[in-house]
């Protein structure tokens, strides 16, 4: 199955994407993630102001199959969450790259270097299959 990957974003092995906007990291889950999860029925968002370390479970995405943690791909402070997902979690299924989950003010932008670019992530997904 061909999954959609967007050039210019950074990707984690846990299937999160990061869009960098200055010192802010916009974070969501990938097309591969939403496809594996199936219909998403609930998104548990973090509190604004929370400090997170890279790898922390920062949100929960629940589908008809399973509840899965979203791991923060970078460290920082939560400055914004996508509250539209509370009423319409299916937005992630419809367009996982448009419908971000949270925005972090990064404390260490150097962590971005550990993430994959679109090409490596695409290869990573193929290996996962």
């Amino acid at each position, binding site marked *: 199955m061909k999954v959609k990957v967007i050039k210019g974003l950074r990707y984690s092995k846990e299937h999160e994407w990061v869009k960098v906007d200055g010192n802010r990291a916009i974070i969501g889950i990938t097309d591969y993630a939403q496809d594996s999860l*199936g219909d998403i*029925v609930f998104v548990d968002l973090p509190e604004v102001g929370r400090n997170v370390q890279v790898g922390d479970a920062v949100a929960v995405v629940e589908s*008809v199959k399973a509840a899965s943690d979203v791991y923060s791909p970078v460290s920082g402070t939560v400055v914004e969450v996508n509250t539209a997902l509370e009423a319409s979690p299916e937005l992630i299924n419809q367009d996982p790259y448009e419908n971000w989950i949270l925005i972090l003010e990064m404390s260490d932008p150097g962590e971005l270097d550990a993430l994959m670019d679109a090409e490596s992530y695409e290869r990573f997904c193929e290996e996962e299959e």
Partner: protein
Amino acid sequence: MKGRPLIFEMSKPGRKAYSLPHCDVPQLALEEMVPKECLREQDAMLPEVSEVDVIRHFTRLSRLNYGVDSGFYPLGSCTMKYNPKVNEDVASLPGFTQVHPLQPDEAVQGCLEILYRMDRLLSEITGMDRFSLQPAAGAHGEMTGLMIIKAYHQHRGDIRRNKIIVPDSAHGTNPASAAMVGFEVVEVKSNDRGEVDLEALKAAVDDTTAGLMLTNPNTLGLFEGNILEIADIVHKAGGLLYYDGANMNAILGIARPGDMGFDVVHLNLHKTFSTPHGGGGPGSGPVGVKKELEPYLPVPVVEFKDGVYHLDYDRPLSIGRVKSFYGNFSVILKAYAYIMSMGSEGLREVSEFAVLNANYLMERLKDHYQIPYNRRCMHEFVISAQRQKERGVSALDIAKRLMDFGFHPPTMYFPLIVKEALMIEPTETESKETLDAFADALIEIAQEVEDQPEKVKGAPHTTPVRRLDEAKAARNPVLRWKP
């Protein structure tokens, strides 16, 4: 289903399903007998219907039910085996049904004897030293067992041990129970044989390890062949081993968790020991421990001294009660009847047939579905619908289509480490004819996926309700008849 009224909608004012004899005592107004604050201001919205309406309504509903008494139920990891009816006979003997849990010990010696003997039997079957029969279900047993592990470490002053290790194939209840008891959960990966990766385990243990939770055979239906080494790694690090008994049906009379190095086990009487499972059971999840953990078992424990059974509450290190009274007694009784009617050889045969049936089914299906871990399985096995997924048909679609053939679907999308997983556990009680009919159905569905995938994607076609919108049901649950 649509168009059939709810019983509330059948209600007509004044219609009754009962008739009471004439009252032979003076009648008083309700207000004279019951304090005002206890009286309801509005009538309860109970349906007013005739007796025949009630009988037809609930008989119709009961016929929509699907249970192990109506057909094959291969729900992996759940051991939906047939419940012998002799168990019910034993549990309904008046000597057991006409007792009260507050009767003094000397008046319920028979019941206490059952509890005592059941402890001995389960200890023998699992290789443990002592059991508590209190926990009301498997997850409750897990919580109890983990509380015992916590109490053990704390009593020794080893308070840094706050981590429980679980493999990535574990039952979801394992990490959930560990978190509930206040442990941090550490996940270890499985290797390419579907077993615990020893190197990953070695890297995960340290002086904060409280224990490891493991199912053996694991949720892939595979026996953890390295179990002695696994036990050694955890014990050397100072942790304890917890055995999730969900898959005990594979090893009765053949291997014992106690001999594998486990310190705590829970069993599911409603799985392995043939007591009713679905529909609320109720369940029963006894917890067994090795000698050094006995002091921490829940109170009370049944003791036998000078020819008399008594409930022992004098256990200062106990974690306390985990359930009112003594557990789900009638369920324990049914399981006791099962063990006694099977005998030790019969129980061994249970596992031999459970394993044989699973392997037979797997062999019949392996040319038609992907088998991610293609080796001898134990009492259950996992197939993957990855091949069918390429044609746009998912494991969910196949599960739904099986209902059209009159079968309960297998467990889906579990364990999480297998994509498009269908987990099949036939149990020992099924005949070759039933197994063949089920295999034929799955093979026919695989063919349908090639020839007419839309038929599978639109299933079920013959059930009382068609495909339900699970996402809508979860996103927008309607839980009340009227707001």
